[in-house]
């Protein structure tokens, strides 16, 4: 029996990786960044940027979400590619739902 | 022909042609698959001393039987799309009939003011366009002999047009389940020779054209005080606005179609015309669907030529164009 016929769960691979323990320092740094971003998003809402207000708000929110996913949810440290795949699939299918629905609404007025 | 629906519109022939084409192609595909299945089933049935031969598969075959069917499918798609495009693009000069659906009846109002319930008289050989809305739930206007159906929605207009080719009486069904008496929400489309149709139209007598009703409502609701036919009004001049692009305050341009006029009456704040203040009150809940239809019909009747030639019909009241 060679290593390559074993599914991932049977290999020693996963057991050999030590669990990532997040350091207090980096966690606090992320926390502060998130708080600053919250302030930023409130501030940005009061500046007139035309249609870019919504875009700015969503960009900041996405940046915050990415920080939470990567650092607080440990995705940056995981050796498991599947986690990323699950996240990407969820976002992809959400995108499909929103985009194809809007494909209807946005083109209803066209003539 | 038994087991085949009447064909009474230009669309019907087109849909039938595509349908027959698809039935033939599908029949060929089905026969091929079934014949192969049956042939294999007999040829390769278990026999003493004869073992199965193992075959892994074939990429060439997989690609072949993906690409060829897909090409056939594309033909279905394109042909179907062409028909659909026609069905969804009403001709400009079609005779218009306003249709209001409610649980469980169809109400029609002709431009001439003639009203009908569950029965619609139309002339043969002329384009007819229905402008439809629902008072309650979703219904669907379905005439099998025309091969067309269109859902009728609360809160907005949908349209349906046809060009009848054969006089006769045809089924009208509600095709979208709409509650208890859904199967009772049926009626007849009576397609008549033009002569009979004219006779029928004048037969009722005493009908006031829809646009004239709309004109009266236009004064009654006070629309006329702001929407004047000159440039002095507090609201946009509505003469000739129908089916023309309108530049909005937020920079968008929309086409002033039936739905736009309807929305502007019910929800004036939704699309503000550039250069005007959003001061018009909403009429939501204050007018019925029938009144709304009449107003829309009136606004549509305000074409440039009419406004120039017959101020009365254009309904500008005291204001002179």
């Amino acid at each position, binding site marked *: 029996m060679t290593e390559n016929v074993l599914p991932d*769960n049977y290999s020693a691979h996963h057991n050999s990786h030590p669990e990532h323990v997040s350091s207090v320092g980096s966690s606090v740094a992320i926390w502060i960044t998130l708080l600053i971003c919250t302030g930023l998003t409130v501030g940005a809402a009061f500046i007139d940027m035309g249609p870019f207000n919504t875009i700015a708000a969503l960009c900041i929110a996405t940046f915050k979400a990415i920080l939470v996913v990567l650092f607080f949810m440990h995705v940056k440290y995981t050796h498991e590619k599947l986690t990323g795949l699950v996240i990407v*699939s969820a976002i992809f299918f959400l995108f499909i739902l929103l985009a*194809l629905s809007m494909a209807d609404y946005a083109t209803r007025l066209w003539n | 022909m038994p087991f085949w*629906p009447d064909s009474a519109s230009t669309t019907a022939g087109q849909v039938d042609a595509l349908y027959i084409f698809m039935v033939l192609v599908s029949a060929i595909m089905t026969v091929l698959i079934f014949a192969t299945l049956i042939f*294999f089933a007999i040829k*390769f049935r278990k026999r003493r001393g004869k073992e199965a031969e193992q075959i892994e598969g074939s990429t060439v075959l997989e690609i072949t039987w993906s690409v060829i069917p897909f090409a056939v499918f594309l033909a279905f798609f394109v042909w*179907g799309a062409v028909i659909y495009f026609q069905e969804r693009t009403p001709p400009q000069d079609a005779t218009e009939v306003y249709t209001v659906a409610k649980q469980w009846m169809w109400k029609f109002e002709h431009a001439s003011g003639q009203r009908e319930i569950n029965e619609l008289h139309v002339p043969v050989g002329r384009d007819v366009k229905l402008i439809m809305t629902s008072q309650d739930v979703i219904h669907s206007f379905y005439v099998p002999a025309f091969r067309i159906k269109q859902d009728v929605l609360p809160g907005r207009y949908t349209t349906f047009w046809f060009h009848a080719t054969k006089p006769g009486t045809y089924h009208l069904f509600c095709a979208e389940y709409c509650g208890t008496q859904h199967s009772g929400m049926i009626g007849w489309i009576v397609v008549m020779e033009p002569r009979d149709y004219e006779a029928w139209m004048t037969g009722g007598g005493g009908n006031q054209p829809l646009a004239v009703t709309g004109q009266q409502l236009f004064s009654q609701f006070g629309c006329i005080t702001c929407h004047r036919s000159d440039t002095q009004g507090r609201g946009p001049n509505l003469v000739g606005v129908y089916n023309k692009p309108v530049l909005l305050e937020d920079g968008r341009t929309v086409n002033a179609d039936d739905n736009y006029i309807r929305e502007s009456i019910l929800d004036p704040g939704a699309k503000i015309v550039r250069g005007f203040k959003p001061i018009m009150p909403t009429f939501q809940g204050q007018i019925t669907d029938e009144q709304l239809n009449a107003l829309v019909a009136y606004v549509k009747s305000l074409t440039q030529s009419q406004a120039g030639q017959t101020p009365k019909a254009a309904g500008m009241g005291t204001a002179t164009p």
Partner: protein
Amino acid sequence: MATAVVVDHGERENYLNAGYGLKSWLLTRDHKRIALLYLLSITFFFFVGGFFALLIRLELLTPAGDLVQSDTYNKLFTMHGMSMIFFFLIPGVPAVLGNFLIPIMIGAKDLAFPRLNLLSWYLFIVGGLFMVYTIMAGGVDTGWTFYTPLSTEFAKTNVVTAALGVFIAGFASILTGLNFIVTIHRMRAPGMTWNRLPLFVWSHYATSIIQVLGTPVVAITIVLVALERLFHLGVFNPALGGDPLLFQHLFWFYSHPAVYIMILPGMGIVSEIVCCFSRKRIFGYKAMALAVLGIAVIGFLVWAHHMFVAGISLYAALIFSLLTYFVAVPSAVKVFNWTATMYKGSITYQTPMLYAFGFIGLFTIGGLTGLFLGSLGIDVHVTDTYFVVAHFHYVMVGGMVVAYLGGMHFWWPKITGRMYPESWGKLAALIVFIGFNLTFFPQFILGYMGMPRRYHAYPPEFQILNILSTAGATILAVGYLLPMVYFLWSLRYGEIAPANPWNAAGLEWQVPSPPPTSNFDETPVVTWEAYNYDELGEIPTKQEVPVAH
């Protein structure tokens, strides 16, 4: 070879005789017992739904609405749809056969989360109780599609309890799917690589993706409907500017892929059966695996083809029609590959194979008529008519139910340790096939003639075809009752089944029938490809049967 021992007639401990008390069933975490709990529950709903169907067909025998009142009729087809779709077809194959077989097929002792599996069944039962309550309390008449604003503002029946039932059963389905994905990723035995998975497992993997990612959308949509009725949150209310089509978008985002939840597992079953009774490797294994994944993913992109006449934009309709044809390709590929698998095989015609033949034929017709509905010009005429009714019954009943029956026959010896009576099985398969076609083929013609669906009374010119259809339905009913009877009979009087009566490939055939509670005494190591029929020889004839290798 501890796991391949000859059954010695019930003496060996198996999952059935591991405990007899009610508690040993209701608190079990054994995936095989949970599968049987599911089997009982979905069979109940199948016959409830079937009973409604029969009443519907009887009503339609005459053009006048004379057997039941129109509101009763509306409740009948609504509850027929809800029982069949949410409580039979969707849990159907995955929660019964998938639950039973997937762990064994991949060499695992159980699903990854046995307690979650049991929770899933309890959720299903709670949802089912809501449904039963709804029926008892006078029914619901919105149609299984819950279209707004009919369901939110106008219907006066038990919409909220029905919605809750569907919502809760939806979570049962999500948990099943989640469990399968994790199990297939994490619990495979050594050597059971992705390229060696039986296609049954692949098709359940694809199904599970839809269950996990699609179901929540319909769940929240149904909750919004219930909230609109209960607390007047008007998300779909046209009076507040709500768009009636938004509900349809959200509903079909799930409910179109949901038809693939229903059909993909059936495709998995057929792949297993066709290979076994042709004694052949599957033709184009990779194409078949890719096809199920392709169907699952592309299936999410086509939902608005249910809405071509609903008032969506012209451009959206064009996009969705085109995408619909993309999803047809992998379905066609599957049919071609099954056919090619039989080429140069050594084919025998036991009951499961008859059902597999039935499936390929009926699914081909169901699939091809789907192309008609995907074509915009045709769809405008035939949508919301009996053409649609016939089409989806060809896929759901002719496809899924036929595959399910085929699978039940194929694995019945494994599940119960008893053989079903073969000649009765063949007879029932034939009756189902004839009854089915007689019921639903006339409906295609009815549909093109223009008979709208969900009609309680109809114009007299449609009567002849309706009579044929009703006649077919009674034959179909016999075809369904017959297996019920002989399956039950076989539990006591059927021949004792050997571990591998079909001499079939796959790990599930290498454990005793019925399997022991932990499936494998020792974790198997897989060193062979799926469907290694070249190494197995022929199906044993009756005389040879009890002698396993």
